């Protein structure tokens, strides 16, 4: 943050704008003029595949940068409502500027990812968080590194690879990527070009294998043996669907290499809109507890789990019980309306979970 932004968010200024944050005033001047709220302007949108795109952003001065492997909460305003999803940063962290990219694979039901893929225009202002996440490269990167990704899990790994090559990492990097087919793969041209550097890029197409592919099928320990990698001595990052991560985790546990493994789930919560019977898990994020969805309202389920959330009328009037729903879908008990937005405020006394739901309780 620059000196002007630091001053605008300082205590004396806050005393003058109290009870509001200075950003409450600054954002009315210009949405990017905020001192602490991270915002960015969309510089460009690039199609990667038929259903994946990369969004190039230029953040305002509130942005404090990212480490390769981190993600941001990404909010777009559509018809008055800010819809927020979490996307991985895919660009290199080597540069100093405030430009970076996020890459997103559009889910068939994903409102925001579809919007990004089809409707997002350069010039649009988006609402971000600071970069978050522990799935990052260490400050001292060891010489040998194994990066494994599956499907759209390539995005944070791509940021790592780009950063390392741009910083002229001297060690040997093996990048093992699993995709369904070459058409389904993001960053194909760049991955082709990477072969010439000291990065060993191995791509395995699980559904349409390349004609002369040295490796085939899903992840297996033999893949590592073939590449001459000793997992017990190679720091390994894996990001992708839950199935891939489970296999890698079990493999590493079997040979006693778990301490070399860093994992990031690309979790897509199960949303079963027609389910009459309660399914899924209700997670209380703040208190780190979870319980199988019983079909009762979230307030009742929280109380049954031993939590004491605030509440008032218990009939959806007073808003006392409103909390952030972090992910998943909920159904209103009166109107039957289903809401599946990430990071939206709900009244837990009149909402029941539909499938997996996480709330800030």
């Amino acid at each position, binding site marked *: 943050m620059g000196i002007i932004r630091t001053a605008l968010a300082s205590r*004396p200024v806050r*005393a*003058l704008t*109290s*009870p*509001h*944050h200075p*950003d*409450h*005033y600054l*954002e*009315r001047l210009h949405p990017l003029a905020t001192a602490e*709220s991270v915002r960015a302007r969309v510089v460009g949108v690039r199609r990667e595949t038929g259903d994946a795109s990369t969004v190039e952003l230029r953040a305002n001065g509130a942005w404090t940068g990212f480490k390769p492997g981190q993600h941001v909460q990404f*909010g777009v*305003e559509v*018809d*008055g*409502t*800010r*819809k*927020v999803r979490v996307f991985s940063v895919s660009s290199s962290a080597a540069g100093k500027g405030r430009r970076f990219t996020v890459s997103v694979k559009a889910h068939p039901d994903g409102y925001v990812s579809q919007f990004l893929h089809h409707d997002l225009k350069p010039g649009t202002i988006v609402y971000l968080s600071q970069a978050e996440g522990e799935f990052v490269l260490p400050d001292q990167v060891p010489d040998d590194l194994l990066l494994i990704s599956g499907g759209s899990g390539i995005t944070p790994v791509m940021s790592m690879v780009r950063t390392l090559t741009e910083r002229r990492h001297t060690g040997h990097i093996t990048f093992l990527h699993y995709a369904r087919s070459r058409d389904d793969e993001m960053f194909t041209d760049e991955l082709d070009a990477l072969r010439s550097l000291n990065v060993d890029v191995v791509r395995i197409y699980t559904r349409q294998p390349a004609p002369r592919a040295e490796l085939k099928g899903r992840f297996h320990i033999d893949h590592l043996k073939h590449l001459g990698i000793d997992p017990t001595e190679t720091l390994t990052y894996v990001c992708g669907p839950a199935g891939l991560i489970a296999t890698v985790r079990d493999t590493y546990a079997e040979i006693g290499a778990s301490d070399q493994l860093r994992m990031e789930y690309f979790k897509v919560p199960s949303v079963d809109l027609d389910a009459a019977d309660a399914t899924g898990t209700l997670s209380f994020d*703040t208190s780190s507890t979870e319980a199988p969805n019983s079909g*009762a*309202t979230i307030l*009742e389920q929280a*109380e*049954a789990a031993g939590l*004491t*959330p*605030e*509440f*008032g*009328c*218990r*009939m*959806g*009037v*007073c*808003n*006392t019980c*409103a*909390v952030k729903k972090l992910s998943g879908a909920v159904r209103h*008990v*009166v*109107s039957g*309306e289903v809401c599946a*937005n990430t*990071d*939206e*405020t709900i*009244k837990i*006394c*009149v909402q*029941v979970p539909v499938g997996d739901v996480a709330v800030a*309780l």
Partner: protein
Amino acid sequence: MSKSHPRTSGAIRHRVHDRVYDASNHNQAPAPLVSPDTDKRATVGLSYMTYEQFDEFGNELDEIRQRVLDDLGQADANYIRRVIRVQQASEVLGRIAVFAGVFNLWVLAAGAILLGFSKILENMEIGHNVMHGQYDWMNDPMIDGHRYEWDNVAPAQDWKHGHNFIHHTYTNIHGKDRDIGYGLLRIDEDQPWYPNHRFNLPLAFLLMLFFEWGVMYHGLELDDYLSGGSSKEEFGSRTARAKRKARRQVLKDYVAYPAIALLAIPFVGWWAPLAVIGANFVANVIRNIWAFLIIFCGHFPAEVETFLEEDAENENRGQWYLRQLMGSANISGSLPFHILSGNLSHQIEHHLFPDIPARRYPAISKDVKVLVEKYGLKYNTGRLSKQLLSVAHQLAKFGKKPADPYKQGKSPESKALRRAKREAKEKALQDAA
């Protein structure tokens, strides 16, 4: 996230573990108004319609609600942001004019009025409505009902408990809704009369001048603490929050901004900071008077109905709606008047749908009036002057000592009646257990 309300939480926990609270059947009373006698049905509004009609009435209002909710979108978001922009512009201009006012008293007066206008907008059309959660669907953290704090000495958290929960759920029920006379005035026949009510009118006048402090004091719920309703810790944290908030507000208006005016002392004289203090004080009082006038017209005009707890126990959704409708009064006026009142001039619509953006109330009122006509209900509305006169008349009338000893709080008769009611209730609870 662990604030609890002991007065009600005991009853609710009991319910939760006793039987499954079937929230999908929304057609039931809020938890604490459930009678130990489960077969009992509420008698609220039976002179207007039957239980079957109440179900239909409730469904019709639920449909209106859903129709508006489905239609919320960009226009509503643009509206509230435009109001915030006007409010902030008038605040900044007002503050600047107050500083410039040390050179010219007319400019000082204009600054105070502009700042008062800005505080009115902030408290009523923005603060009150945002804190009801009317704009939570926008998912904008700056206008989120749970995070918003308003430009008023009353802390948002305690105001929301007293207002959104207590007042909006138990509207106009004696012994439940603490907003009937605010524990200070006698405004309804069914309130017991005490000698301090002789000063109804002068007390109301003082409350008008210092309304924000009254709202803060009301949120402390001292009476609730003294009667054993909340613990010492809870009362302590309410007091601490109020002190912290009042300190910030006082620091801003009476220390920080006046301190900037110290720079003007060499040019105009030692009194420059005092002029800023005075103008800010006037701005706060302007807001206090306006808020008081609008809010007192919401529930206190003569024809507004109040209810007894025993009549409202086990009420259904239609009866809950009816209680909101008959317990509120509107004020007619122009569009700027409605905005300045935070659309509380549509108090009836606000009480039916407290979490729908207030700019929708004028349109909703047309649908409500159709239902009022259909079921032969009353729709209390009138000009500000008419409603204010009615309120003043009520204050004067109910300030006088009533002849009926049962209406006097301290008479042996009403003491005996209260004791008998208490014992009957305890007995009913024991029987139910």
